[in-house]
């Protein structure tokens, strides 16, 4: 007997302090069992608390459990995923990578070409290669926008001819046969490879902004043995001969200084950035652009201060030019390299070479350079957003480098591909701005879920407090609070949120602040439903025995309302929170889709679908909406299935009827 009382005292001296959640899952039976004999405890254990019953019932529903699992995976991916993308930038754009279909084979050199490489070249979304046997191969993303042209369809005459040189532009390829004949294929709409007569024959009117391929070149071709360089840019092409003369044709709109070059008689080297042609004329002392202020400043590394070209060079001369989209690399007469043009701040810098090490070859992609030195070392520098400068572990044996737009290929003396590095492709394609959709979906998911969650938290805090107060105290407070709730629920949601957002747009606040205010708007406009629900539940609970008991014990009113009643209505609130979370996510997406929510460059699933607002894009660029929609739909459907199942299993009536 005394033993038992001691035990009781012990139990009383350290009362199990359990929180609301504790109460949810361990009903009195568990506490009761502590005081029982072991043998009898087994009987008590068999009584399952209502909450545990709910959990058990929930796990009987396969669909709901599957949805819950999917939802949890989604959450983990969205919140852990961004940690694996340190290079991701919200405002990243790339004109040469726009609207690319999902493709992971941008760097996959065809098997037939792998051991027989003569040359490889790439400027835009695809790469072209030429074997020593004179065969042309094209790989990468070969569908060109909405034109319906597949540049991978190599014309019959090219396949039959033995090709000597090939070069790729943004949306066209130019090849020169062994016999000097010039071939071109790909997009032709802006005069990429047509003569004027051919262009007119396609049913187009002539265009003063196009410099057509000359009739002479088409008829007589060029002398291949004297061609120094064949190079293509953004809808432009050039054949440079070793006597300095050159043939230049293409779209003048993209190259502002093209007219000046057309009047230039001879050049020693030529290269294309995205907007300007750069050349090297007789004296080799400056970069020739035809205009005054372009590429006049030179620096010895991508991040060092720039100086005037003449000061920098001293008595050295420029030997060759290599261009990327925004910058030019100059190979100097002493074997060193200098740079001109724009570089992002976070560029990988060029390496500092040892005294006796000199560059042998430099190639430039869209935003990166790769170089080979006389010691056989390979270096890459420039922008690294697409892994362009992440060198492979071993580059031994590489004696020649070739570039795609964001790839570098290392080839040995025998023409075999040794290694390649750079962008493999885009899992979900790219959007209209050239950004990686997969990365944006992960980042956008984080944003969408954060907005939804914060909005729900705001709305539930308001809703629970008002509901509890209103339900428990009743009377005038109740009437007043419920009238306020009615006013709030009378506000039409979407228009009002849009107005607030538009008003904010005219005020001068930061984007982060804006997003926070949007969360608040969503939260403040959704609380009345929850408040009413809580009030109803509290009204029911107020009449129950345990509240009467608490009252008779003299517990304070506010303590009863928030500590005794609230935990008992928690389960209902949780369901409502779940469903509200889905609703808030949907509303945020709708707002952002219309352009009144979170705005570009910050991604959310709503504003990522913003571009898919006309039939052309919806049909031609299906990847730009399918994946994002899928993520959004799966998440909201899962939330609703789980919430629905929870509500069903919590309703004692529905389970009894079954």
């Amino acid at each position, binding site marked *: 007997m005394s033993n038992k009382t001691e035990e009781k005292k012990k139990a009383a001296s350290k009362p199990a302090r359990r929180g609301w959640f504790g109460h949810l899952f361990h009903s009195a039976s568990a506490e009761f069992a502590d005081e029982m004999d072991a043998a009898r405890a087994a009987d008590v254990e068999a009584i399952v608390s209502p909450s545990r019953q709910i959990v058990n019932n929930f796990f009987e529903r396969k669909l709901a459990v599957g949805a819950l699992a999917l939802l949890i995976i989604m959450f983990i991916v969205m919140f852990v995923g961004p940690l694996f993308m340190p290079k991701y930038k919200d405002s990243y754009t790339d004109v040469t990578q726009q609207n690319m279909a999902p493709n992971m084979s941008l760097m996959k050199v065809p098997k037939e070409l792998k051991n027989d490489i003569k040359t490889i070249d790439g400027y835009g979304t695809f790469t072209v290669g030429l074997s020593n046997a004179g065969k042309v191969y094209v790989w990468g993303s070969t569908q060109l926008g909405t034109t319906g042209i597949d540049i991978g369809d190599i014309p019959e005459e090219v396949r039959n001819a033995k090709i000597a040189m090939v070069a790729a532009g943004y949306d066209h390829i130019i090849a020169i046969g062994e016999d000097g004949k010039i071939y071109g294929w790909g997009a032709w709409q802006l005069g990429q490879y047509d003569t004027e007569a051919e262009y007119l024959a396609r049913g187009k009117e002539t265009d003063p902004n196009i410099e057509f391929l000359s009739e002479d070149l088409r008829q007589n071709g060029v002398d291949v043995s004297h061609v120094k360089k064949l190079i293509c840019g953004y809808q432009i092409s050039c054949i440079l001969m070793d006597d300095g003369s050159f043939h230049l044709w293409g779209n003048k709109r993209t190259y502002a200084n093209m007219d000046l070059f057309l009047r230039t008689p001879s050049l020693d080297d030529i290269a294309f950035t995205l907007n300007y042609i750069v050349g090297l004329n007789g004296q080799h002392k400056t970069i020739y652009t035809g205009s005054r202020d372009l590429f006049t400043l030179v620096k010895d590394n991508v991040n060092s201060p720039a100086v005037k070209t003449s000061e920098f060079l001293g008595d050295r001369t420029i030997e060759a030019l290599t261009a990327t989209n925004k910058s030019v690399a100059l190979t100097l007469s002493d074997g060193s390299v200098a740079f001109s043009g724009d570089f992002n701040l976070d560029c990988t810098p060029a390496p500092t070479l040892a005294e006796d090490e000199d560059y042998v070859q430099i190639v430039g992609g869209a935003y990166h350079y790769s170089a080979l030195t006389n010691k056989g070392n390979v270096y890459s520098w420039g922008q690294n957003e697409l892994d362009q400068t992440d060198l492979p572990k071993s580059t031994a044996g590489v004696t020649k480098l070739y570039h795609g737009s964001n790839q570098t290929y290392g080839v040995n003396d025998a023409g075999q591909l040794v290694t390649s590095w750079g962008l493999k492709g885009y899992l979900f394609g790219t959007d209209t701005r050239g950004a990686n959709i997969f990365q944006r979906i992960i980042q956008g998911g984080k944003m969408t879920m954060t907005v939804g969650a914060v909005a729900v938290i705001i709305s539930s805090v308001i809703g629970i407090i008002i509901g509890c107060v209103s339900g428990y105290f009743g009377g005038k407070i109740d009437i007043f609070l419920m009238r306020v709730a009615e*006013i709030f629920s009378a*506000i039409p949601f979407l228009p009002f949120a*849009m107005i607030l957002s538009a008003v904010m747009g005219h005020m001068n606040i930061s984007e982060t602040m804006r997003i926070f205010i949007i969360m608040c708007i969503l939260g403040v406009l959704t609380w009345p439903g929850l408040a009413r629900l809580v009030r109803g539940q509290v009204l029911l609970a107020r009449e129950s025995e345990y509240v009467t008991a608490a009252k008779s014990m003299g517990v304070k009113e506010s303590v009863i309302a928030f500590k005794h009643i609230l935990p008992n209505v928690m389960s209902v609130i949780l369901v409502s929170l779940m469903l509200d979370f889905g609703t808030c996510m949907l509303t945020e997406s709708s707002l952002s889709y219309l352009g*009144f929510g979170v705005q570009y460059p910050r991604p959310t699933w709503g504003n990522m679908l913003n571009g898919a*607002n006309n039939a052309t894009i919806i*049909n031609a660029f*299906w990847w730009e909406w399918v994946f994002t929609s899928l993520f959004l739909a799966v998440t*909201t459907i899962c939330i609703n299935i789980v919430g629905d199942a929870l509500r069903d299993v919590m309703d004692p009536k529905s389970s009894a009827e079954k």
Partner: protein
Amino acid sequence: MGKYILKRFGYLLMVTVILSFILFMIYSLVPANRAYTDAQTEFKAMKNSIPKGEADKVLADLYLKYQRMYGTDTNNRVIRYLRWVGVYPLYNGKFDGLLEGNFGYSYDYKAPVVQMVKNPMLNTIKINIWATVIALAITIPLGIHCAVKRGSKRDQAVQVFTIIGYSLPTFLIAILFIWFFCGKLHLFPTNGMGTPGNTYTGFRKFADEMYYMALPLIVTTFCSLGGMTRYVRASMIDALSLDCIKTARAKGLREKVVIYSHAFRNALIPIVSLVVGWFLGIFGGSIMVENIFGWNGMGRIMITALRSADYDVVMLMQMFYIVISLLGTLLIDIIYGLVDPRVRVNK
């Protein structure tokens, strides 16, 4: 009953006033000064005819003139609000506000707001009536069927589909349907309200309109299917568990009679309230659908006005939405009382 309605009207009026005040205050946060812009415009137009040295004075006069015209010649926002409503006089002692029938002027359309809103309103009503009718014709039989055959395979399938239906945002459904019906099947036009430049009359005109209306109509209807079906099903399940149904069955009535005559009548009450709320919604229109399909309705007007900061229009539309939704709740309560004698409204 009369007293109750009167009381509710009073309350409705109060809420409207409070909300309009809040709205007006929100708008006054926008740093736009219409009087100043207008004064500048007129000033520039007559610049050459102004004698030297008087330019500043002329501009100031013009500014004052416009400020007086718009009632913004005071910094007191409450007075501005009262003037907007029309219960506080302008500088010349005249009243010119909402109550006097001045609903504002659209700067985009260069027309009074009321006149400008007329056509879109008709368009919106046209599409929404069709949508309501079609949605009801589908959801009520479907909901009843699911409730009666509760737990069956077919019911479960419908349940899953309805969850999917109401989990998808409208714009997603619109994108999917455009892709499927326009991109793959080439059945419907993707936007517009009629063949451009047509001079059709009679049946031809109607057919053309329906052709263009088809896709937005399908999307609008589809979006409401999920929620409505679940609602009908839920209220029908409640009705089927009533004691009167047991009695009816015990009497030996045919199952059809039990379901349609006894149970459905009881289930009708919540459904009616839903339909009424919905019916009022037809004036508001769907911002999303109208925007995507280029349907010139109320929702589209709202969005264009918001984008171009045409705030007189936005204000009026917003007030309109609020009044509609308040009237909706009132109407639902009254109809509840009329349909269901068990609900005493004047309690």
